[in-house]
């Protein structure tokens, strides 16, 4: 695979590959680190890969091996990645769903987030975009960590339900 094809693919599939890593390790910063390592490995191995290879499938194999290899390091970060036996079956979901399904999901997510009250968008932004710890948000809002966690859980759940409804709207292929 040529370098420019690799770079284009890494940009195009970054979101899906990062999500795959987050699903496996359960932590975004750790997933970001692993994504960097994945990109380095792919750069090293690109010459042995076909130009038109199935990029997500290639990424899945590398991602699963990276998580297995880094299990000890992740444990030191108090993370509990999924068991080795199910890493691959979870990662395969991203491959089987197809790229357009994830694009449609992203579009629906944007629409649903736009319907949220400003207060809820602010909370999502602080926790996920700015990666502010739940403890710090709780202190700032003079509430408990549990209350912030519960609020985020309810928000994420209602966002996901809204996304599912949008994706089932008639007229969607």
């Amino acid at each position: 695979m040529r370098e420019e094809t690799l770079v284009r693919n890494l940009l195009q599939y970054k979101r899906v590959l990062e999500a795959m890593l987050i699903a496996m390790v359960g932590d975004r910063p750790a997933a970001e680190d692993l994504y960097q390592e994945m990109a380095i490995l792919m750069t090293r191995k690109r010459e042995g890969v076909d130009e038109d290879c199935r990029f997500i499938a290639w990424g899945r194999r590398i991602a699963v091996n990276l998580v297995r290899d880094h299990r000890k390091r992740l444990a030191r970060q108090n993370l509990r990645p999924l068991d080795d036996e199910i890493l691959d079956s979870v990662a395969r979901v991203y491959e089987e769903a197809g790229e357009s399904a994830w694009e449609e999901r992203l579009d629906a997510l944007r629409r649903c987030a736009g319907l949220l009250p400003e207060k809820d968008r602010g909370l999502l932004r602080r926790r996920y975009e700015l990666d502010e710890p739940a403890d710090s948000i709780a202190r700032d809002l003079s509430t408990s960590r549990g209350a912030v966690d519960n609020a985020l859980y309810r928000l994420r759940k209602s966002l996901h339900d809204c996304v599912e409804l949008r994706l089932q709207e008639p007229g969607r292929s």
Partner: protein
Amino acid sequence: MKPIRWDWDFLIHRHLAGGLTEDQAAALNAELAGNPALRRRLAELAFEQAALAAVEVPVLNESAPLLKPRKPRKRAKRKKRRKSEGDGHDLN
């Protein structure tokens, strides 16, 4: 003893927040192994989390307050200045 009935959505949420206990992790792993629909749900929720984190949901940025609004300052009540004699008159 009755087995614990887990709320799988909650466990996925905890997993994605890096906060599963050992028991919860064991239960989630066992269920994921035999439940393709749950694997799909985990993948979808992780994707949504990645998108929320990657500023790909721009609507989050629009006027979403980063800090809670500051309490309005209490203004010291100003006493109405009485017009003293001479006010409004040209002293020159």
